[in-house]
């Protein structure tokens, strides 16, 4: 393991421990440790909080952070665009419109039966399919600019729909819808974990095996084709992988911006552009950022909880400006 990845992994392990140890529940350090180790003298309520509430939540945000960072790396590479992020193909807007529509307009039993996360995931897939359909032309290579413009158009359409739902919806219900829009990991349980973890494992394996192909795409479509890369087919597979990661992330914690945009740049500054080194660091860094921000969300205004998306935006601006200063001369 390379040095930046090794150090970041150690810090991530500490952050996960902190995420499990710190929260609004008052307890002594010995009780916290006993609860984590599940010793016989551990307070039962604290064990429950740590094992059934905090740990799955921390692991869920770590998975989402890693997923969004990996998706961001792949999108920036295959679209040759430093501003590309996992939501570029309208995934977040589609998920928002579907979730807000379900919360505000559908009979409560629909959301109760299907669950808002599944409805959001389906909305994300619908937006993704529309973007893909608009970008697709037989025999063409799905030019990055066409995909980006199609994504912008689809995003705008679903954003307008979300705004319309909120404007005409019941004011009492809009607070719940807005809370979902700003992202939160509250209430995430073990049952919510396996699907995002499985998807992350599969896509990480794919990206690892195809690291050289991703490297070749950094040279441009034509140069990659000249090196034997089937650019169109590979781009389609990457879009599918990104849709899976981002769609499941949105379904798990709602809309969490910036991680998929900023973390790939931070990782690139530390590890360089070669994907063999970049992907592991981006995964760990993405997980670390979201675990730390989620912890802050819980403790800054305790006992109230801040939305994940709001705090992330506040923390994301300064590094983004720094990165912009660093890379602006390169584009």
């Amino acid at each position, binding site marked *: 393991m390379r040095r930046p990845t090794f150090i970041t992994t150690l810090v991530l392990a500490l952050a996960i421990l902190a995420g499990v140890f710190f929260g609004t529940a008052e307890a002594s350090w010995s009780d916290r440790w006993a609860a984590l180790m599940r010793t016989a003298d551990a307070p039962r309520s604290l064990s429950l909080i740590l094992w059934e509430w905090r740990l799955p939540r921390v692991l869920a945000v770590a998975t989402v952070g890693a997923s969004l960072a990996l998706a961001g790396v792949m999108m*920036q*590479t295959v679209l*040759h*665009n*430093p501003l590309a992020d996992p939501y570029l193909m309208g995934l977040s807007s589609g998920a928002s419109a579907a979730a807000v529509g379900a919360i505000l307009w559908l009979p409560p039993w629909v959301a109760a039966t299907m669950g808002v996360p599944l409805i959001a995931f389906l909305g994300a897939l619908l937006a993704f399919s529309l973007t893909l359909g608009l970008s697709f032309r037989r*025999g063409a290579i799905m030019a990055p600019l066409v995909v980006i413009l199609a994504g912008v158009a689809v995003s705008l359409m679903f954003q307008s729909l979300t705004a319309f739902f909120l404007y005409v919806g019941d004011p009492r219900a809009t607070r719940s819808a807005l809370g979902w829009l700003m992202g939160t990991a509250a209430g995430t349980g073990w049952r919510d974990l396996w699907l995002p973890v499985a998807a992350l494992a599969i896509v990480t394996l794919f990206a690892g095996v195809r690291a*050289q*192909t991703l*490297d*070749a*795409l*950094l*040279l*441009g*479509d*034509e*140069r*990659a*084709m*000249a*090196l*034997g890369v*089937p650019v169109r087919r590979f781009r389609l597979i990457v879009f599918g992988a990104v849709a899976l990661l981002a769609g499941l992330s949105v379904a798990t914690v709602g809309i969490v911006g910036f991680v998929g945009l900023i973390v790939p740049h931070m990782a*690139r*500054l530390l*590890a*360089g*552009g*070669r994907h063999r080194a*970049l992907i592991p660091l981006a995964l760990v860094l993405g997980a670390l950022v979201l675990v730390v921000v989620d912890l802050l969300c819980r403790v800054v205004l305790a006992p109230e909880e801040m939305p994940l998306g709001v705090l992330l935006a506040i923390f994301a601006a300064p590094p983004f400006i720094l990165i912009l200063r660093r890379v602006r*001369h*390169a*584009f």
Partner: protein
Amino acid sequence: MPSDPMVQIEGLNVSLGGRPRVRDFSLTVKRGSFHGLLGPNGAGKTTLLRVLYRARAADAGLVRIAGTPINDWARPDWTRTVGALVQEGGSLQGLTIRDVVEIGLMNLPLSPEDRTARMDEALHLTGLHDMADSEAALLSGGERQRTHIAQILARDPALHILDEPANHLDLCYQILLLDAIRARGSTVIATFHDLTLAARYCDTVTVMHEGRHVATGRPDEVLTRKIMREVFRVDGALEDGVMRITGALR
């Protein structure tokens, strides 16, 4: 060395956005020869090369590389056989010069020692060895071109497809690098705007005009006063290996 041609093109037609770019074009390039594609802007040279390195499909016609239709090549064999220098530039985000050269060696069955030796030789030849760990995204146009040529030199393919290899290069590197490519003895098919440079390096040249084949032969046979007037719209001809131009035609 097998005696069959390295490149065979028969009745090729390619259109872009409904506009024909290459029309009923045929050409044969011998193994080991340095072949130039010449013509004014819009003649179809780059489009033809894009078909050769499989970035674009033809509407009609047949292209064979070393006797095999280009679409029948398995990817690993293709990567080992064909190398292309293209005009398009990627983002090169986070890559060093050494990275760019090494990426070109993907899919080649090389030992780590061979890989390093090939990269070092290519970086020395292109004058980039001392700056090999510099960020590729920050390079000047000439340095970028040298980086991509270093990648081709390190790959050392049997067929070099070079789109404007002299672009952005100063005179010294034009000569140094084209000498290095020529010294490999591989088959080269390259486009040139500088006709004197083309005459210096090409065993044979083909002149294209509006997507059509005009003439093929030795540079001194092809770059005649008549073709210079009709195709390039200048008064001039190749004399003693130097293109002498007296003026442009309106």
